[in-house]
């Protein structure tokens, strides 16, 4: 077995050829667990990560520095019609580096639907419970105590309580949190118990090799079996530095629902039933901002520690599909969301310390698609359904109601034109049809579902083992697997399904 370690692709001097029992593409939640499990099984395993390898001392809490470093397309990724900004991580650790550490299991109702309606075997609530428990132990998941709740989250709690709405504290995977509030720019204090800190070092200890700055260009395959990956190492400016050929009988795709599907498409992976890339869900959301007559300073402290689930049910066919949490940003992010420009915008920005911001995130039924352009770059097609639009509108109105109940003197929904209300009575007169894509700024941070699992090749891409229906040795271990939206933050689901499916990849590699 090779000795494990981290290798920076930008430091490679020339083209290289590697051999491995398995190669994992992507080092986020799914890839890191798959890598660890394969390595612990005694297999010679390599991970390829297109982004760089940053550690806590590199996270300088600057938006202008960290956003282009930690996010795909310098934070500018969007759906093709530019209606929804899609934030996705890149770099060793993937999106677990910049996420806000929320830990919720895949709801039982969702697992039941996958089993009953999508032909997913062996992943019902009873089978997955011990997997979730194991992963939560590894990640030191705990409830966020009330003492760590900042003023923005306290406004959510107070507003929901005043309305008598269902709400409660969230769970997270932080240990030693300094409550700096810069979670979305990477943790400078190593408090995140994530892929970067927990999973990948464990994989390397077990012998895995992790190559950063290496973009997987295509998966190679022959005769219905994968044979490896063609990749390119890039320097700090993104210029091609070296060619890398990895020969391996097992390839685990864990490059996100966008990256994995795009790579599979670039690689001409068999798709006889036109399923590859379809079923894109992403929990699109928008915000409402309340102005208070006291300081909120929402950029300080844990960004998200409380939730309102009054309008969220995971039951099949539910018409309550909105999750409400806080959504605060540092000045750059806040400025982009506030409506208008010029003097009026600057005047509004002066109220930044007194703003509390909530987001309504839709547990979406819309089914989008990931395709690639002529250069192999991903294209995201997603046209929000009318049902989802209504959910979004309902959710934003609910956010406004919570903020008013918590004491906001004015609530702004940044539509065109902006919706501003000062009372619940004014809110009752808001036309919800004004809340729609291209009118309100939408953001999505949870792409999923483009290489769905299921036992019927006509309606899914991979089987219940995670292995591709037509291409032996190709496994998926990220959010691409999910047949539907899950309606909760996906990291625990992704970590856990990667753990759940890893034995099948191990068995294939040994075979």
């Amino acid at each position, binding site marked *: 077995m090779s000795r494990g370690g981290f290798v920076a692709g930008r430091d490679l001097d020339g083209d290289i050829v590697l051999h491995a029992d398995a190669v994992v593409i992507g080092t986020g939640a799914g890839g890191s667990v798959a890598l660890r499990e394969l390595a612990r099984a005694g297999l010679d395993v390599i991970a390829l990560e297109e982004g760089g390898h940053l550690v806590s001392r590199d996270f300088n809490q600057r938006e202008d520095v960290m956003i282009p470093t930690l996010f795909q397309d310098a934070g500018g990724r969007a759906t093709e019609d530019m209606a929804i900004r899609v934030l996705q991580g890149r770099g060793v650790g993937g999106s677990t580096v910049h996420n806000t550490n929320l830990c919720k299991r895949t709801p039982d109702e969702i697992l039941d639907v996958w089993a009953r309606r999508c032909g997913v075997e062996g992943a019902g609530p009873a089978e997955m419970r011990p997997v979730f428990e194991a992963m939560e132990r590894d990640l030191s998941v705990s409830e966020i105590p009330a003492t760590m709740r900042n003023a923005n989250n306290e406004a959510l709690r107070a507003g929901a309580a005043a309305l008598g709405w269902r709400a409660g504290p969230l769970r997270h995977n932080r240990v030693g949190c300094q409550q700096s509030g810069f979670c979305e720019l990477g943790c*400078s204090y190593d408090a995140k118990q994530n892929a970067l800190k927990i999973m990948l070092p464990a994989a390397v200890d077990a012998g895995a090799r992790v190559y950063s700055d290496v973009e997987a260009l295509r998966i190679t395959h022959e005769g219905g079996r994968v044979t490896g990956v063609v990749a390119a190492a890039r320097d700090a400016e993104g210029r091609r530095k070296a060619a890398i050929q990895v020969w391996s009988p097992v390839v685990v795709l864990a490059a996100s629902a966008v990256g994995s599907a795009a790579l599979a498409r670039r690689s001409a992976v068999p798709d006889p039933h036109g399923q590859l890339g379809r079923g894109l869900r992403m929990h699109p959301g928008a915000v409402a901002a309340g102005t208070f007559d006291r300081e909120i300073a929402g950029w300080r402290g844990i960004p998200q520690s409380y939730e309102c689930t009054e309008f969220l049910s995971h039951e099949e066919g539910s018409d309550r599909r909105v999750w409400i949490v806080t959504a605060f940003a540092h000045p750059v992010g806040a400025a*982009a969301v506030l409506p208008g420009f010029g003097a009026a915008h600057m005047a509004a920005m002066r109220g930044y310390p007194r703003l509390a911001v909530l987001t309504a995130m839709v547990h979406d039924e819309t089914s*989008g698609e990931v395709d690639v352009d002529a250069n192999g770059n991903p294209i995201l097609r997603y046209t929000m359904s009318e049902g989802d639009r209504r959910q979004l509108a309902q959710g934003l109105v609910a956010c406004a109601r919570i903020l008013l109940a918590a004491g906001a003197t004015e609530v702004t929904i940044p539509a065109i034109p902006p919706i501003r209300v000062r009372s619940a009575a004014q809110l009752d007169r808001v036309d919800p049809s004004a809340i729609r894509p291209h009118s309100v700024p939408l953001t999505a941070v949870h792409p999923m579902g483009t290489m769905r699992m299921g036992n019927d090749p006509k309606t899914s891409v991979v089987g219940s083992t995670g292995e591709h229906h037509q291409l032996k040795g190709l496994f998926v271990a990220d959010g691409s697997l999910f047949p539907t939206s899950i309606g909760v933050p996906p990291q625990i689901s992704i970590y856990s399904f990667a753990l759940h499916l890893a034995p099948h990849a191990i068995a294939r590699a040994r075979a």
Partner: protein
Amino acid sequence: MPGPSTHPDPPRLPRLSRRQALRSGALVSLAALGLGALLAVGRTRGYAIDPARRLAVLSGWQFVVVQHVARRVVAPDRPDDASIPTADGLDVAGFVDAWMALMPARVRRDLGRYIAVIEHVAPLGAGFTSRFTRLAPADQDAVLASLEASPVALLRAGFDGLKALILMGYYRDARAWPIVGYDGPLVGRPASGWTASGDRP
């Protein structure tokens, strides 16, 4: 088999490229982009730019347009307050140029076209016959407001994108933080604070 879940898949979405979407948006967008492209080719002279300026992505005339847009997007709410930094003082347009170099080529291309629309076409739509960069500030505001509220979704989206870049170029800078009461990163923060110390993170 019934739909795969509570959220059954609709038929495959119609393929609509960004360019196709632009073309199909409305007659306004057709006119805007077509005319914009024509005019952009023929009317790229007469822009004053510091010869020492080295641009990463933008051409000289595009840079000047972005400078003008930036001045309006972060126009001060208190014009007589000299402590408010200006867009030029923080080199916001230079930041936009540098940031665009990080973007995928197709996004850079679209943004470049959008800058041409702002300069040559959007003024016509707002009732002006001059280039954007030759308009008075109040008239420039009217042009930008027309884009922000355009009935064409992609024109609005383009404005939002450029606005976001400009605001990032402005509010990333510690000299702008006193406006919003932001105290900046904890990492490396001087004992006296970023803005009080005059340091920039």
